[in-house]
């Protein structure tokens, strides 16, 4: 059974919401938590379960992060790889990356992370 995850944002870690009803995994804020891989491990695990159990429902990754440390970038890559694999297996997925139009670095990062992937995605500048 997929549970709901909700983590409040802190100065160094993002708001996280994993919704079992909509199968949306949402991040917002900045991401440089002290034990980055520890922070992301359960979230990646949730994503794996959502992809395995979700039947035909679209699994969505919604990212609105303005800063990521290297561990967070790596964790994003891991999540994107899993979504891409699922997409190639015929599962419906979606990636939405929200960027502040004035934050050039984030737009560049989003483009770089998504450029080799085949899954449906949108980089939305707001």
């Amino acid at each position: 059974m997929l549970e709901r995850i909700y983590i409040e944002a802190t100065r160094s870690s993002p708001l996280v919401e994993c919704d079992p009803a909509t199968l949306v995994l949402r991040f917002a804020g900045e991401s440089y938590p002290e034990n980055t891989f520890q922070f992301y491990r359960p979230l990646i695990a949730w994503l794996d379960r959502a992809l395995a159990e979700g039947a035909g429902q679209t699994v969505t990754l919604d990212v609105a992060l303005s800063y990521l440390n290297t561990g967070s970038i790596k964790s994003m890559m891991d999540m994107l790889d899993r979504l891409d694999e699922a997409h190639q297996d015929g599962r419906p997925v979606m990636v939405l990356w929200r960027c502040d139009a004035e934050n050039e670095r984030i737009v560049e990062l989003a483009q770089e992370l998504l450029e080799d992937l085949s899954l449906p995605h949108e980089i939305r500048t707001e």
Partner: protein
Amino acid sequence: MSERDESTETRIAALVEKATAIDAELAREVDWLVGRYRRAERNLDKISRMSDRMQARILELNDKLRAASLTDPLTGLLNRRGALDALATCIRGDLSTDGACMLALIDIDHFKTVNDTLGHDAGDQVLADFAVRLKAALRAQDLAARWGGEEFLAILPDCPPDEARGLVEGLLEGLRNQPVLTQTGLLKVTASSGIAQIVVGEAGHEAALARADKALYAAKRSGRDRCVMAQD
């Protein structure tokens, strides 16, 4: 064939079938692992490139920051820190080839009056204008700094004292003859200067600067709008 041979054959066939199935499953698992491995390699490459770009950006920003910390924003000349840096370079012997630099302290006459009567914007325009004239009067190898509020310092490496005097007098004459254009109109401005020599290997810049300052004071006291050489 005996009964034993037949059942052994059947068992062997069953085992071969199992082995083939395991082989196929193993191949699928290996494929999956290889796929993951390739993705991991690609991600590592990406992260390495990102890291390289960030390091390059850091170096570039460091350079910009360093330059900005030595520059006076109003005039674009070196600020006091930049000037002290340059004086130290001079003393070390890295600025001139003949072992000496000329220092010219130049102070705009009656500058406080300009600020008080016409406002600080006009004062700033006078300073900015003077900085342009100073740079134009100096040679390519010379350094120009805003030393204080209305005080400037020129450092001239490999420069005979007479040539330094000539340069500064030319600057003062230009200032005397061509009023400064400000938002409040044309403003007649003059400056005074004291010139001294600083020698490679000196204990510090203070003595040379004190001599230039004393000469500057003499210029002010004897009527301003002139240049005086320090008595070494």
